[in-house]
């Protein structure tokens, strides 16, 4: 197998599948894929939590709380994630506490570039999720809410026990869309040197121009598979949560 690709590289100078036989390059690809998966999972989880909490806060009695959520949504939805990454890492990164290294120069901020990427991308996708959940919540009939209230549920209980489970089902298709986008947006973390898949792939095809086509195809395939797994899982979930007669 390794010999085959080594030979292929010699015969076809544009088709050097270098990560099939060079251990070092293989390590880069694998660590890149692993970082992309970690980044995606962390951002998906945090952004959904932000969405659920944000949508709940949007229905708060206090105008200040509602104003804060609105400001948050406008701030993150109206700026490009690329700009947010640079802003968080370079501008806000200045103000976080940091540990000075033994060389007396380098400082290691307590939030690394990976940390900032998770924060920035989670908040970015979270802003959309708030609106997605709001749409779901508004689809829950007032009479259902009133019924819960008359049974003695508190506002929080009504939200977690009655409204959210129903709203979640309505929101899932739109949420699905946004999470797919989020996974693809993780590539932008390369702006702040997060060693995810695209970063590693670019390193490889800069070092070995002959490996450009194979590496581009690999990145392509990996994202199709990653997003495919996510979509498959979300669809399964959607079906599992189906209530006969409600929606669909």
């Amino acid at each position, binding site marked *: 197998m390794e010999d085959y690709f080594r030979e292929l590289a010699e015969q076809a*100078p*544009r088709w050097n599948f270098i990560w099939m036989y060079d251990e*070092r390059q293989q390590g880069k690809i694998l660590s890149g894929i692993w970082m992309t998966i970690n980044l995606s999972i962390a951002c998906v989880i945090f952004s959904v939590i932000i969405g659920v909490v944000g949508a709940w806060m949007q229905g708060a009695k206090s105008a200040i709380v509602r104003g804060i959520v609105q400001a948050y949504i406008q701030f993150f939805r109206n700026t490009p994630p690329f700009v947010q990454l*640079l802003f968080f890492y*370079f501008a806000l*990164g*200045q103000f976080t506490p*940091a540990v000075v290294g033994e*060389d*007396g*120069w*380098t*400082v290691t*901020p307590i939030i690394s*570039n990976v940390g900032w990427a998770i924060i920035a991308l989670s908040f970015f996708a979270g802003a959309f999720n708030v609106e997605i959940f709001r749409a779901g919540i508004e689809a829950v009939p007032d009479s259902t809410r009133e019924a819960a209230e008359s049974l003695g549920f508190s506002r929080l209980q009504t939200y977690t026990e009655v409204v959210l489970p129903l709203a979640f089902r309505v929101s899932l298709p739109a949420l699905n869309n946004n999470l797919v986008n989020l996974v693809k947006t993780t590539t932008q973390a*390369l*702006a*702040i*040197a997060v060693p995810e898949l695209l*970063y590693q792939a*670019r*390193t490889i*095809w*800069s*070092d*070995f*121009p*002959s490996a*450009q086509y194979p590496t581009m195809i690999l990145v392509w395939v990996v994202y199709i598979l990653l997003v495919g797994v996510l979509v498959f899982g979300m669809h399964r979930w959607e079906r599992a949560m189906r209530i006969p007669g409600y929606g669909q």
Partner: protein
Amino acid sequence: MKLRTSLLGLAIASVAFGASAAECTNDTWNKVMERGKIVVGVKADYKPWGYRDTNGDLVGMEIDMAKDVAAKMGVELELVPVQSSNRMQFLEAGDIDLMIATMSDRKDRREIVGIIGPNYYTSGTNVLAPKAVGLKTWEDLRGKPVCGKQGAFYNQIVEERYGAEIIAFTGNAEAKQALRDRKCIAWVYDDSSIGSDLASGEWNEFEMPLSSEDDNPWGLAVPLAEKDCVFGQFMSGMQYNWHRSGALIALEKKWGIQPTAYLEKKAERYSDWLVD
């Protein structure tokens, strides 16, 4: 016998010429001439070779070279900013006709784009590091975070040879900002570029403490198919004459670049082709 040999030689020569004439379609050259405009890929973040001035215009030593090329061809010039990690793809895809973008002339790159000599410049690898750290040798980088730029061939060399942890950014601006923010111990790059940074007075707390390694000539490139055709031959002549006339040395001075022995040697060698 003699006649036979020379006839045979003539036959071989005519076959060879015939073959190369058939191969040369000169597509790019003809396209440039037809539309009266040449599109040149240059750097936008590599002061003073190619960067944006305060008006946002692309200026620099390589832009001046591109201007000269357009003037000699009698066409208009359009500049397209490219990055280290995508410059060859731009040329391959035909988005640019010519690339003058601080590219090191490497063997594997010659298989993808048409790099022609004589090389117009050369530089080595060095680091920009804070004086406070007091780097002495390349070995001091082992296990330390070192900022770099995505697409530079020596990132890998420094990683493998000296065990530095390269954190590579997409542009020079981000990488240098990361160094200022103390996210890395040094910034690994071309010594010539670091030299101009130090001369600019904006990096007084910093130094270039190591001895340069991997001296590498820079190459401009035309599409691979045009390398041995009109365009490639023309660019080869342009570079030869830039060396011969001392134009490159003049540009070096104009842009405040530290004089390199390489250009002086080339100018001397080519100034009169009869002299050895």
